[in-house]
Each structure stands twice: as structure tokens, then as C-alpha cells.
């Protein structure tokens, strides 16, 4: 299956929105491209869900626009055939069966009942589809939400926290599914407040905080930048080592009783400098940042303000 690349995009351009005095979206701008999984990460309250609601036309932005396949979502004739979204897996009428939930969605798009059975199969709902959705575990609800998102075979898929409530098997399944959707040429936007969930999933990352994009980059680039040429030094004389390194213009941070993290000086020069000055050291290693660390680094500023009530209407 292939999708026209122009159809398989989400363009978010300069969105601004306030909830009371608090800006929820503050110039949010990014593009989701086809053929890859774009991770949408940021702390709770950063504006992920609000952005997604604006993309879907559920919320209005005071400024800016959001386009799906080049047009506003609200102008789409059968929107679920253009964008499949999972916002809130618990948004279900409890006494309606999973199959009937998908059936009314299918009818709203002029899709046949056969398509319902296909996505039930695809999402692994199986016989549970004929049970009332009110009795579903969160994991089953996520699968039902995925089935609903895939119903219209859309070129764009947008999932808000899809890993929530999934058991380890489910997480593996979800990762495989996301990769498969991207491989089919779809644009996939997946939000999470935990970078670790996206570590092996996302090809591209949009990191946000305070309603703004902090980083819009590939995963490998982000890791490289986050590592930032930092060097970890293990030494029995940390004070002496710090003094010597400062003299060479490096910045050091004591990260343990006998450990320093050095920024601004490559590892080879660090070794040479210490040796020249007779500072003992047992280990010099280039720091390899994890995605989680890179993310924490990026969002540290935004997290500092967590004391302020989070503007995002989280569920």
C-alpha cells in the first residue's frame, strides 16, 4: 500500500491558544511526514493533547492553522479515511459492544460492515469485539481505539499515548504495528510523555514544552547532540582534576564522589591534559546519552515550572 505523500502529512503552523491566562499552545509548529513514525513528546501539560485536538478540529486555535493532507480537518468529507486518531481509549459508551462502536463509526464514513471485521482482526480484538466495551481493560480499549483509527485505512495515523495500559506483549505488538504503518508509507504521529516508550519506535521526534517545539529532529541527531561531547572521568582526586580542566576551559560537574562529567573538552585532550599535570585517573569514557537523558536535558527548563498548574486538559 502506498499513499500520496501530499495526503500523508500533518502540518501544524504557528498554533496559539490560551486556557485562561496560561498559554497552552505558544506558536506550535511542526510537520509530520509520511513513511516514518514521528514521536511527539513533552511533559504532561506541554500541549500534546491540545495540539492533537486542534488538528482534529475539536478545539479552535486563536492563531495558526493545522492541515491534514494540506486541508483543514473540518473540511474533510469522510475524515476517518484521511486521518485515524486515537485520543482517549476510554471514550466509549460502556454498554455498546466493541463491534457496534466500530460499526457506527463505519456508517458515519460510508464504510461497509466488512471493514469493521477487518480492523477487529487487525487490532487483535477477536471474540472480545462482541462484548460490551464497558468491561474492557485499558489494554483492550487501546486495541479498540487502534481499530477505530485504522477503520478508514487512513494515510495519516495520530495516536495519543497509545502505550498506556498495554502489557509487555501489547507494547511489542504496538511497536510492530507502528513500524508497519510507517513502512506502508503512512504518516504516523505518536505522543508520549515517556521518551523511553518511543526509544525503539520513533524515527523522528518533536519534543515540546510550554506549548512550543523545543526540538524537531531525528532520533540519531538528538542523541548525538545530547551527548554533546561530554566525557566521564573517574579519578581519586576530583578537586585537582577539576582545577586542571577548568584551566583548559572545560566545564565539570561532579556526578559522584570520584566522578566528574566534563563538557567542552574532547576525551583525548582530557587524557593528555591530566597526564601532563600528573592527575591520577582510572577511567575516561565518552558519555553515551540515552534518549531519556536527552529528553530530560531538553525539557529540564520546562519541567522546572511544573509547579504552575498544567494548562493542558489531561484526562
Amino acid at each position: 500500500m502506498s499513499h500520496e505523500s501530499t495526503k500523508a502529512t500533518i502540518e501544524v503552523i504557528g498554533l496559539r491558544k490560551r486556557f485562561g491566562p496560561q498559554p497552552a499552545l505558544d506558536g506550535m509548529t511542526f510537520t509530520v511526514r509520511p513513511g516514518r513514525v514521528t514521536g511527539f513528546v513533552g511533559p504532561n501539560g506541554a500541549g500534546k493533547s491540545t495540539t492533537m485536538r486542534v488538528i482534529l478540529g475539536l478545539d479552535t486555535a486563536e492563531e495558526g492553522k493545522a492541515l491534514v493532507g494540506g486541508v483543514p480537518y473540518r473540511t474533510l468529507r469522510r475524515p476517518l479515511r484521511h486521518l485515524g486518531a486515537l485520543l482517549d481509549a476510554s471514550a466509549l459508551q460502556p454498554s455498546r459492544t466493541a463491534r457496534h462502536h466500530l460499526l457506527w463509526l463505519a456508517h458515519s464514513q460510508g464504510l461497509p460492515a466488512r471493514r469493521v471485521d477487518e480492523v477487529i482482526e487487525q487490532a487483535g480484538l477477536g471474540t472480545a469485539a462482541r462484548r460490551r466495551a464497558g468491561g474492557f481493560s485499558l489494554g483492550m480499549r487501546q486495541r479498540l481505539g487502534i481499530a477505530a483509527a485504522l477503520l478508514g485505512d487512513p494515510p495519516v495515523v495520530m495516536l495519543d499515548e497509545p502505550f498506556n495500559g498495554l502489557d509487555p506483549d501489547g507494547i511489542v505488538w504496538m511497536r510492530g504495528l507502528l513500524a508497519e504503518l510507517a513502512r506502508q508509507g503512512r504518516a504516523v504521529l505518536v505522543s508520549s510523555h515517556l521518551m523511553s516508550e518511543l526509544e525503539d519506535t520513533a524515527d523522528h521526534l518533536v519534543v515540546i514544552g510550554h506549548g512550543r517545539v523545543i526540538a524537531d529532529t531525528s532520533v540519531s541527531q538528538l542523541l548525538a547532540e545530547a551527548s554533546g561531547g561530554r566525557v566521564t572521568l573517574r579519578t581519586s582526586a576530583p578537586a585537582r582534576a577539576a582545577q586542571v580542566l577548568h584551566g583548559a576551559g572545560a566545564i565539570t560537574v561532579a556526578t559522584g564522589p570520584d566522578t566528574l562529567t566534563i563538557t567542552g573538552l574532547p576525551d583525548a585532550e582530557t587524557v593528555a591534559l591530566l597526564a601532563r599535570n600528573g592527575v591520577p585517573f582510572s577511567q575516561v569514557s565518552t558519555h553515551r546519552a540515552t534518549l531519556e537523558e536527552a529528553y530530560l536535558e531538553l525539557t529540564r527548563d520546562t519541567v522546572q515550572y511544573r509547579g504552575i498548574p498544567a494548562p493542558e486538559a489531561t484526562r
Partner: protein
Amino acid sequence: MTTAPTSRPPATRPAERDGFPRTLHAEWTKFRTVRGWVLATAGALLVTIVVGLLGTAAPAPGGRGAHSAAYPKGPGGEAVNDSFYFVHRTLTGDGTLTVALQSLTGTADTDTGTDTDTGTGTGTGRTARSAQPWAKAGIIVKEGLTQGSPYAAVMATGGHGVRMQYNYTHDTAGPLSKAAPEYPRQLRLVRSGDSLTGYTSTDGSHWTKAGHAKLPGLARTVQAGLFATSPEAKQNTATGTGFSPAVATGTFGRPALTGNWSQSAWRGTQVSGDAGTSGSYTNTTKGDFTPTSGGGYTVTGAGDIAPVVGGPVMGAGFTVENFLVGTFAGLIVLAAVSTVFITGEYRHGLLRTTMTATPLRGRVLGAKALVAGGIASVTGLIAAAITLALGEHSTRGRGFRILPVTSATEARVMAGTGLLCAAAAVLALAVGTLLRRSGTAITLVIASIVLPFLLATSGVLPPGVSQWLLRVTPAAGFAVQQTLPQYAQVLSVYEPSTGYYPLAPWAGLAVLGGYAAIAFGLAVVRLRRRDV
């Protein structure tokens, strides 16, 4: 449907116009796949029927008219009272009867201790007094002696002057009707084919037309002569309105005849055998006629020649709307279901999914209104049809009469009940959209539709307040079920407590429909403007 202004720029308005059936299909699927809603709808149907049947499950009547299987029907199909004392001869072909009415007097029973405005108590509770306002005496031409047969009559009344009346529902005021009655008063009725014309005169030489009637297909041979009758005396007391037996006595001069009249003597007949539902003889009177010394006659009678109306004068019988008394109960259930149809989506966050599938919010609400209204309408219609069929069969079997209505009226009542339920459902849906909370929305809808209806029709409020409620609240919609006729020439208690609504059937429904339309319009505006 109200097209509400929207704050959204035109660019986000859709070009598509053919998507509504899909949205409607989706909303219908939503409704039918929640078992509780389907069961509640069935419950609404059932409760309407059961309450209707229980409400008309009175034991067999013991009052007057209990033995009659049905009300007599006039030429127009309406239920009529046709009870009067008739002094008649046979007239074949065209002819004229002229007579002087020398006096019209009356006698009425009054309850002991009742504060009546006229007359002197005799200690027996009976008071001789002037004739009742609609006591009648005069000349009548009638196709036969059977009740409900076509007639035309020119008459003097106790309080409304000379009238020309025909075929029960038609009443024309004659000349000088406002003036005080002057006696003797000359009356003349001319028959020419199927055309009858009444005249009146104060001097016997200058005649004024009182009215004209055309009785299509009137038989060539008719009964014609003098008559007198009186409906019961209506008395307003501190505790309410009462009716008590009354008779009227007309004293006539010698009748002058032209045309081909039978040669037999005048015969006296109490038409219908008794005084009907709106009249009754006092304990010491009966219908009779006696010759006077001047060749005239004194005629005493009780009853009325008029359509049957509601209220105490209706006697033991049911109206079509009596069977539909359970509508309010079904309405409560339907309103609750319709409210939850939208508030449930708010509660479970499902409205976002709905709006994602159909970004046109007005279209979503329109589809919901059509589904909720359509289901309520069909439920109301079926409930009405079943209840009427069962109820009429059951009450007839127990010896009750049912006020006949035309099939058009019956169809209007059934369709109107459906539309009443539909409008209430749409109102409930709209209020639910505006308030977003099931409990408050359902309470508000019930308080605005059902509560005023129950207060107004139960008679606990003064009539003026009841009528006001049934004009300005959504409860006005219940008027669409009314079949009871109201006639100025028949005294009764025309109040909500006796089944009379201040607004005409469709006007009342229009009030409810207006509320529903306004609420729906507001709901669309709010839904469009609000983030969901």
C-alpha cells in the same frame, strides 16, 4: 431548523451536502446498539398504554346515560343531545308555521343553601325563576323523531334573545338578541324544499329574518311544530361549578299553518325519551303540553338540542384523549432517553469521537434530533394507536359511551401524539446539549413539560393559572390531543381540568415545537462555538 450564526470562518464550512444520510445512519446505529435505550423506548410505549388503560379503568357507570351504548350523532357525525318536548304534526312539502310566544319561563332545582341570585326559596330547595340562559322555546322542523336527525329551528332563549339554530352545531343570533326579551314575540319558520328561514316580529306585521338554514337532502315529509327544552342550571358556588335540573315552559298562542299539514291533532313527544346528558327534569316536573284557552299551547320540556361538550354535562363517557392520559408518563421516559443520547456522549468523552467522525457539529445534532425525534414520534404514534384501540374496546364493553370523533380528528390525535413526543424528545436533546448533564437536563425538561401539564389538568390550580401554564409552557403541546368541542351556545366548564386547553390543537403543539426549535438552535450555536 434554525440556522445559527457561527463564529467559524467560511473556509471551514463544508462544500459537501450529501453526507447527512451517513451521519443519520451512524446516529441510528448508536441508538439501536445500546440495549438500555431500546428497552427504555419499549418501556415508554408500555407505560403510555398501561397508564392510559388504568386511567380509564373505572367500573361500569351508574349515572344517567349508562344504559346507552353510544351518543346520538348529528348529521355532521358529532355527538349530540337531542332531547326536548316536541308538539308536532306532519308537514309534507313546503309550508309555514307562525306562532306567538307569549312567555318563556323556567324552573330549576338549586342546592339547599346555595346562594342564588334570584328567586325565593320554597324550603324544598326548589326555586322558581326565569328560564335558563340557553332554555329554548319556539318552532322546529325536524326530519323525524329519532335523535340526531336534521332539523332547523327558530326560537327564543332565556338569555340570548331570538336564535336560528340548525343541525346542532349551527347557531345564529337573530335581531334584537341583545335586547331584553319582549313578549309576546312572534316567530315564523318557512320551509321551502331543503331551505328553512326563520323570522321574528314584535307586532305580527313587520317581520325580520332571524336566520336561514339549508338542510341538504331533507325528507319531503317532516315533523314540525312547537318545542321547549332547557339544559341544566349552571351554578357557580364557592366550591366550584354545579349543575342542577331545570325545565323551560313556553306559552304559545294559536299556531297558524300554511302548506300541506296532516289533519291529525298535535301530538306531544319527549324526543330521546329523557333529557339527555346536559338536561334533566326536576323531581316534580316532566315534559308535557297543555292547550290554552286561546287555542294555543303551553309546552314544558328539559334537555337540549345541541352538541355534547365536555365537563359535567358530558355524562358518563370517555373522550379519545382520556385514553391517552398516559402520554405524559411515556414522555418522561422518552425525554430521559433523548437527553442521555447526548449527555452520555459528554459523560464518556464520546462526543470527541463523534465530532472527529463528523466535524460538522450542526449536522451531528441534526441527525441526533432526527433519530431521537423519529423514535419518539413512532413510539408515541404506536402507543396512541394501541391505547385507543384497546381502551375503546374495553370501555365500550363496560357500558361507557365514547365521544365520537371524525377519523380525521382521530388521525390528528394519533399523529399529534407522535409529534408531541418528537418535539419533547428534540427539546430534551437540545437541553441536554446545552446543560451537558443528564440529571439537570432531564429534571428541567420534565419540570417544563410534564409538571405544568399535571398541575393544570388536575384542577389543583385556579383555572386562570392553569390556562396560562398551558399557553406559555411547553406543556401547551398536549393540546394536540384535545378532541372535546366547545360551543358558545352550550354552557359547561371549559377549563383545563375538564379537558379544555386554551390553545387550539396545532397552536398548542406549535408552542412546544417553538421551544424545541429555539432550544435546538441554541444548542447548535453552543456546540459549534465550544471546544469539545
